[in-house]
Each structure stands twice: as structure tokens, then as C-alpha cells.
């Protein structure tokens, strides 16, 4: 029997839940407090209470006492308030960093009650409700708040203007969570929220952090709002800079007053502005605040390249984020994600980061054992972005001998980690130098990657296909390693996936495998794929899949005459599919289709005749022949590809060339080509002249 002074909770979860039902408010209150103290900080306890149905039980207490408190109006009973405060705290804790808890709280229908309690007369009730709502809004499961509606906007503004720290924090969290479209961003801006948010940047720690996050949401990809934000504060900067100078310099002040341009020059685009208050926070005492300030600046930079362009601030962001990476907790985990968004797609910043030893810093992280999955994911993504464009980064990465750690991550329990390991490998395997050396085509890498093609997560499959697409572009003859490991079978299987991105990426990989492959390799792949599957992929509903299928066949028939025979297999279904598809396609798909036909037209007489028949075949609706449409296209790449087909069909030394020329002429194709002698694209012009020269060898009989 437990004694009174035992340190263990006297009551087990089941007992506590029975006590919640007690009619005695005192017992209820005690039970609530005890549940609260057991679950706070304790995920396992949260889970076990959750399974016992604690959330709906507490929610119904909150709801009924909230209604009671409404009817009592002024003099709410102390115990009523305490019960509301405690139950709100319990619900808030269930919702804190625990998705299952958030879902349960939302399902319990307690949300509107918590909102209503924000206007309660008891400060403690308001504070506790706001805190719980804030927890809920920190989860992505929270319902979106439609503040664009006028009434809701008024409510949001009242939250932001509140005296209570948790209530303003809630307002900021709602913005962070619910501001997603540019219309919503503009609505907040027009409602004057920015000004208020700027003032909150000077508030308490939690206000600062919540505000920085919400500002990032309002700025995201919206240069208009950002420029308003900067403009807003410049006014203030001018006022202060003017007042400082008023006494000594009266005339320059009046000149500046109504001239923003000169103000800009006078105070500099960033000094004293709202931007500078965010920049200032990158030096804050608290790591989280520094991180969020960096994040805000990165969002601004990515949306409005005009701001934050000077080298100093770029270098500073790189430096700060690399420094934050050393934080052992959540801040360090998140720092790599912010770093990624800073350098992604930007060569100059990747270079700058490279010069600041970023590769070494991230690789050092990889060498630590038992990294938190979130951190591992972030580090891999950061390395992926760093190595996406610069060979120097890839070479440094490879020299640091962490490839094995990345390969280990391919089999990590967490799908996000597996995906990011693939994305990292995709960037690294772009190194042509190492690709040529066959560095990546070894079983240690190939086998786990092929296994990922079976992964239950589509994003892992797609990412793995990305790596395969790179490593099979192998200029040596090592493709066989991949085939021996069963890679082709898997890829072919994935071309039948329900997800178009998977089909697309699988075809992409196969296309790259086909590139300059030897006959045996081609045959192996074709036998696996079959003509009928390829034909159906060419007629796929998704244009991007069609394009890859055509490009694959283009690579298949490239090379010796024997390869061309593949399109005639199964009674020419494949070639028919190509012809049929080309009647109604986008430029990109057309380009691949025409190169495919061009390759086939480089074959023997039978091949050429078959292509000609495809060109002359009328569309079902009797519309213009696709080749004329392509020749008239505004895309010079498509015109080039189309003329190439004609060049190959009319090659004069072939016996049937004259006959084909006559048929092309009758179809109006030759006259279309004659109209193109002065094409704006040099490539097109050159091929057009080749066709004309070739046709001239048959003399005037043609004209």
C-alpha cells in the first residue's frame, strides 16, 4: 500500500478519471491538477491518459464550467475559475508538441469554448485559455483562422492589442498558422497589423519570438508587403534622424521631409528601418530569437532581392546560422533548415558558405552518433543544397569521407531522413568527375538505393529515383552493376505506379540508363519494359510522363540500325502510339517526339517510309498535320527537331528519297520549309538549307 508521503502519484490514471466525474468541485479540481502535473513534460503519460479518454472528459468539464461562468457574469465563483484554469492547462499540455493530443483536443469540440473564454472577466482564465489556444495553434493540425472576414479581423486585432502576453502571443501564432495566401498577407497589411507587430518586437521573449514567426508568414514570397514594412519604419527612422539633427541642421531636414529617395540615401536603405530592428535581433541573447530573426531575414531576401543585398549581411547570415547549428537542442535542429532556404538555388551564397567552411561544419554533424532525426534530416538537406551547383562543394564533401553516413541514413526509420539522404546523394552524384570514374556505381550505394524503390513512402521513392537517374548516367560500362542488382525490374515496376511523379521519375531514370547504352543493355531494358507498356506511357494522361517516355524511346532507337527495330516490334504499336500522340501535345513533348522520329528516319528505307506515313497521317479531326504545326512553332528547339526529320527523310542517296519528297511536297511540308530560309534561329536556318539543297539534287521536276 502506498503511504501518504510516497513520492509516487497517489492516484493512477483510471482512478483520476473517475475523480474527474465527482460532483464535488474540490475533488474535481484536485484531480485536474494532478493530471496536469503528471502529463506536463511527459509524453508517455500524455499518451496513456489520451488512450483512457482523458481529453474528452476534461473538455466537457471546461465546456460546462465555461457556460456556468458566462451565466454568473460578474462574480464568478473562485472554484469555477480555478477549475477552468486547471482544465485549460491540462488541455494545453495535451496539445503541446504532441499531434495526437492536438487532434483529441480539437475533436473534443472545446475550441469555441476556449475562444469564448478569452473575453472572460477573470484575467487568469483569459491567460490560461490563451495559452492553451496558443499551444493548439503551434500545431499544423489547428484549424485555419479565416481572418479575412471582417469580424474575424477585428477579433485578431483585439488579440494583438491585448495587454496580456499570452493573448498577443496567441494573435501572432494565429497569423503564423493561418496566413498562407498573398490575399491574406495583404489583408493583414491593410489592417495595419504590421505596425503593431513591429512594436511587439520590443516586447517579452515569447512575444518577440511569436512576432518574428508571424512576420515571416506575412512576408513569405510577398515583396509588396515587405516593401510596405520597410517603408513603414523608414518614416520613423526619418523622424528620429530628423529630430536628432533638428537643432544643428535645420535646412537639410526640410529638404528631406517629403522626399523618400533622398531619405533613403540619407539614412541608408536599412539603417533605422524595421529591417534594422530585425537585424538587431540576430544579436539577441536567446538562441531561438536569433534563429527566428535570421529566418525572417532569409524570407525577406528570398522574396525581395532588393533588400539585404550587401555582402556583410549575407556573410553574417551564413555565419550566424552555422553558429546556431552548434546549439544542442531544437534551435540547432532548425538552423539547418533555415540555412537551406538561405542558400537553395543561389550560387553566390553557396560559394560564400563554402568559403566559410560550411561543408565541414555540416559533415562534422554527420559524424556524431545518434543524431535526432530532425537534425539529421536538416543537415542532409543543407548538404544537398550546398552541393547542388558547385563542384568544389561536392569534392570537399567527398573528401570528408561521410558518404557512408549518408548511405546509412538511407535505411533510417524516419521517412523524412531517407528522403533527405536521397536528395543529398542526388546533389553529390552530379559530380561528373566522380561519375565518370564510376565512383558511385558500387553495390554499397546501389543496393540500398534500389531497396528504396519499394519504400512505402512516395516521396522516398521519388527521391531515390532522382539518385538513380544520376548514377546510371555512367560513361563506363558499369551499368551492369545496376542491372545485376535488379534495378531495372524495379524501375519498370514503378513506371506503372499510380502516382504520376513516380512514373515520371522512373522513366527519367530509365531514359538516362538508355543513354549511349550498349546493345545488350538496351535489349535487357526493352524486354523488361515491352513495347505495349511504352506505348501506353507515351499516351499517359500527364504530359511530363509522355515527354519522358518519348525521350526514353529516342535514346533507345539512337545508334545502330538494329536499335531502330524496337519501335517496329509488336506490329509497330509503339510507332503508331508516337504518331497518334503527336497530334495533340505541348512543345516539350513535341521536341522529344520529333527527335525520336528523326532517329528512326535515319534508318533504312522501311524505317523512313514508316516515319513518312506518320507525318502524313491526318489527325482524327482532320486538322493540320502536326509536322506543319511544329515547323510553325514559336519554339526554335521544336522547329529544329522537326526540320531534322525532313532532312533524314530526303537524304538524296537513298533510293526512295525522291518519292518521299514528292509526297512531302504534296502535303505542303516542303513549301512550309521554303518559307523558313531566313529563320531567326541559326540552327533551323542551317537545316532548312540542307533540305532545300537535298531537294535540288532531284532537279526541277519537283518545283
Amino acid at each position, binding site marked *: 500500500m502506498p503511504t501518504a508521503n*510516497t*513520492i*509516487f502519484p497517489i492516484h493512477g490514471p483510471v482512478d483520476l478519471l473517475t475523480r474527474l466525474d465527482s460532483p464535488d468541485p474540490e475533488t474535481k479540481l484536485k484531480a485536474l491538477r494532478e493530471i496536469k*502535473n503528471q502529463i506536463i513534460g*511527459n*509524453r508517455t503519460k500524455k499518451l496513456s491518459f489520451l488512450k483512457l479518454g482523458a481529453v474528452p472528459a476534461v473538455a466537457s468539464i471546461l465546456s460546462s464550467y465555461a457556460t456556468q461562468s458566462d451565466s454568473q457574469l460578474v462574480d464568478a465563483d473562485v472554484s469555477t475559475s480555478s477549475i477552468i484554469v486547471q482544465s485549460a*492547462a491540462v488541455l*494545453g499540455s495535451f496539445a503541446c508538441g504532441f499531434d495526437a493530443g492536438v487532434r483529441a483536443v480539437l475533436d473534443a469540440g472545446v475550441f469555441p469554448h476556449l475562444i469564448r473564454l478569452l473575453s472572460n472577466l477573470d484575467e487568469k482564465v483569459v491567460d490560461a485559455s490563451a495559452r492553451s489556444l496558443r499551444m493548439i495553434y503551434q500545431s499544423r493540425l489547428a484549424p485555419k483562422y479565416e481572418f479575412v472576414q471582417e469580424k474575424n479581423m477585428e477579433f485578431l486585432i483585439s488579440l494583438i492589442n491585448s495587454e496580456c502576453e499570452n493573448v498577443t502571443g496567441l494573435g501572432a501564432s494565429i497569423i503564423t498558422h493561418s496566413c498562407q495566401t498573398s490575399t491574406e498577407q495583404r489583408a493583414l497589411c491593410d489592417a495595419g497589423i504590421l505596425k503593431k507587430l513591429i512594436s511587439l518586437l520590443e516586447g517579452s*521573449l515569447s512575444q518577440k519570438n511569436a512576432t518574428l514567426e508571424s512576420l515571416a508568414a506575412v512576408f513569405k514570397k510577398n515583396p509588396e508587403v515587405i516593401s510596405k514594412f520597410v517603408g513603414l519604419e523608414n518614416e520613423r527612422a526619418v523622424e528620429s534622424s530628423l529630430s536628432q539633427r533638428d537643432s544643428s541642421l535645420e535646412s537639410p531636414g526640410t529638404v528631406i521631409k517629403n522626399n523618400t529617395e533622398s531619405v533613403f540615401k540619407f539614412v541608408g536603405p536599412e539603417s533605422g528601418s524595421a529591417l534594422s530592428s530585425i537585424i538587431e535581433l540576430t544579436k539577441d541573447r536567446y538562441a531561438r530569437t536569433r534563429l527566428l530573426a535570421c529566418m525572417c531575414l532569409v524570407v525577406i531576401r528570398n522574396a525581395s532581392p532588393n533588400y539585404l543585398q550587401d555582402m556583410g549581411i549575407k556573410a553574417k547570415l551564413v555565419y550566424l546560422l552555422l553558429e546556431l547549428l552548434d546549439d544542442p537542442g531544437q534551435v540547432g535542429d532548425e538552423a539547418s533548415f533555415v540555412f537551406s532556404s538561405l542558400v537553395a538555388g543561389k550560387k553566390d551564397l553557396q560559394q560564400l558558405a563554402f568559403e566559410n567552411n560550411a561543408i565541414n561544419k555540416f559533415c562534422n554533424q554527420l559524424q556524431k552518433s545518434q543524431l*535526432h532525426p530532425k537534425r539529421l534530416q536538416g543537415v542532409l538537406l543543407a548538404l544537398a543544397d550546398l552541393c547542388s551547383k558547385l563542384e568544389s562543394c561536392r569534392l570537399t564533401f567527398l573528401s570528408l569521407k561521410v558518404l557512408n553516413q549518408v548511405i546509412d541514413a538511407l535505411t533510417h526509420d524516419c521517412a523524412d531522413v531517407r528522403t533527405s539522404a536521397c536528395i543529398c546523394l542526388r546533389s553529390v552524384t552530379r559530380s561528373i568527375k566522380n561519375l565518370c570514374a564510376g565512383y558511385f556505381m558500387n553495390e554499397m550505394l546501389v543496393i540500398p538505393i534500389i531497396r528504396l524503390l519499394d519504400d512505402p513512402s512516395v516521396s522516398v521513392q521519388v527521391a531515390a529515383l532522382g539518385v538513380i537517374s544520376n548514377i546510371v548516367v555512367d560513361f563506363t560500362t558499369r551499368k551492369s552493376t545496376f542491372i545485376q542488382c535488379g534495378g531495372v525490374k524495379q524501375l519498370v515496376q514503378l513506371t506503372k505506379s499510380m502516382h504520376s511523379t513516380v512514373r515520371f521519375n522512373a522513366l527519367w531514370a530509365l531514359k538516362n540508363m538508355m543513354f549511349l547504352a550498349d546493345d545488350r543493355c538496351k535489349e535487357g531494358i526493352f524486354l523488361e519494359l515491352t513495347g505495349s507498356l511504352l506505348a501506353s506511357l507515351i499516351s499517359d494522361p500527364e504530359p511530363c510522363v509522355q515527354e519522358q517516355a518519348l525521350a526514353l524511346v529516342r535514346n533507345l532507337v539512337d545508334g545502330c540500325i538494329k536499335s531502330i527495330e524496337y519501335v517496329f516490334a509488336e506490329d509497330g504499336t509503339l510507332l503508331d502510339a508516337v504518331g497518334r500522340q503527336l497530334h495533340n501535345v505541348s512543345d516539350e513533348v513535341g521536341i522529344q517526339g520529333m527527335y525520336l522520329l528523326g532517329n528512326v528516319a535515319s534508318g533504312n528505307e522501311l524505317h523512313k517510309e514508316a516515319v513518312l506515313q506518320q507525318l502524313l497521317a491526318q489527325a482524327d479531326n482532320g486538322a493540320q498535320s502536326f509536322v506543319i504545326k511544329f515547323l510553325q512553332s514559336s519554339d526554335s528547339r521544336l522547329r529544329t527537331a522537326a526540320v531534322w526529320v525532313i532532312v533524314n527523310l530526303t537524304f538524296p542517296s537513298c533510293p526512295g528519297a525522291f518519292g518521299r519528297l514528292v509526297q512531302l511536297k504534296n502535303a505542303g511540308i516542303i513549301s512550309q520549309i521554303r518559307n523558313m530560309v531566313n529563320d531567326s534561329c541559326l540552327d533551323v536556318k542551317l537545316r532548312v538549307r540542307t533540305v532545300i539543297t537535298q531537294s535540288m539534287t532531284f532537279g526541277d521536276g519537283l518545283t
Partner: protein
Amino acid sequence: MMSLFWIVIRQLEEIEAMAASKKVITRAEWEKKLNDVKIRKEDMNRLVMNFLVTEGYVDAAEKFQMESGTDPGIDLATITDRMAVKKAVQCGNVEDAIEKVNDLNPEILDTNPQLFFHLQQQRFIELIRNGKVEEALEFAQEELAPRGEENQSFLEELERTVALLAFEDVSNCPVGGLLDISQRLKTASEVNAAILTSQSREKDPKLPNLLKMLLWAQNQLDERAAYPRIKDLSTAMLEDPAI
């Protein structure tokens, strides 16, 4: 060669001249200079209030607020609460401390896994100290082990702590240090700092820093001048320069 020699000599002379010219400032001059420095009374009061609030002297702070009109910048009741939490840990009543922190702000322990782990660790240590080995064992399984699973970085410390179970004479074992009062103080100060952070306050008062800066500045000045310096911080007496 010759010219280089002369340059060296000249530099030596200059250094000697500097040493010889180390300025002497008499007490009278010094006091006059100090008189010219203006310090606002309100600033002093705020420093004192900052000290009282951060160190947790609630009654003094309350009196000081009444007598000097200085705004403590915080609800003084929260100081009482914070001090109660700190004291509870210092006395080994960790469970009580946890309940108090949760009443103060339920977010602190929900968002600070490391602090929560340290408090649980301290609870375990107290059980061992009180000889409740069986309870300690159960507690380790039920409460500490899941923390290690959730967060790998706690594992090492967890193992070290649970090792207390393996020894007959815990005070004389390799991990016996955990039973020292210093461990309690460490945990208490961690909770104290977390509460202050949640209230957006710094965990250290400003006054000690000002005194540190004073000592540093005196050391800098010592190289250039002889002046009445403060040796004993507790009396802040000016001592005549040694000439």
C-alpha cells in the same frame, strides 16, 4: 645597419619616457573628477530593484518600491513563487517544486525537456538519499527510462544516475557526487533560470557585472596612471595612490 640601431635606441627612450610620465592623480583631483560625473538617482534605484528582484528579496523589493517609487517591472508575487520553487528543490522536495512550476507557467516544463529530465533525475536522487531503493527502481523504470528513449542525449547522464542503484554505500561510490548538496543547488538554479527566462528576465542581476567592469577598468588604468583606487568592494573606500 647603423640606422636600424638608432631606431631601436630611440624606441627604447620613448618607452622609458612613457613609463616615467605615468600620471599621478591625487585624491583631491580624483574626487573632483568623480564629482563631475552625474549619476541619476532613478538609475541607481533601478539597479537596486533589479538586484532585489533577481535575487528574490520580495519583501525588501516591496518596501523599496513603496519608499522609492521604483517600478519592479514584474508582478512581485511571481518572485515569491519563484523563490518557493527554488527553495523546494534546495530542500529536496522536488515533486512540490514541479507542481509549483506548473502552477506558475505550465509551458516551462512542457517545452524544456532537459530541465524536466534534471528535475526527474533529482527526484530519483532524493529517493536514493532517503533509502527508498525499491521506489527509486520503479521510478527509474517508469519515469527516467522513457526520457532516455525520447532523447538520446540524456542517456549518458541517465546511466550515471541509475548507477546509484548498484552501490550499497552510495555516498562512497564513483557517482556519489550526485548526492551532494551542490547537485540540488545546480538543479535549483536551473529551474530558477528557466522561470526567469520565461518571464523575459535575465538570470543574473546587473550589479555584479557593473562591479566586474569597475575592477577591469581599474586594471586598465593602473597601466597608465596612479590614482586613488577601490580595493575593497564592500566598503568602496578610495585608497591613496602609491607613488
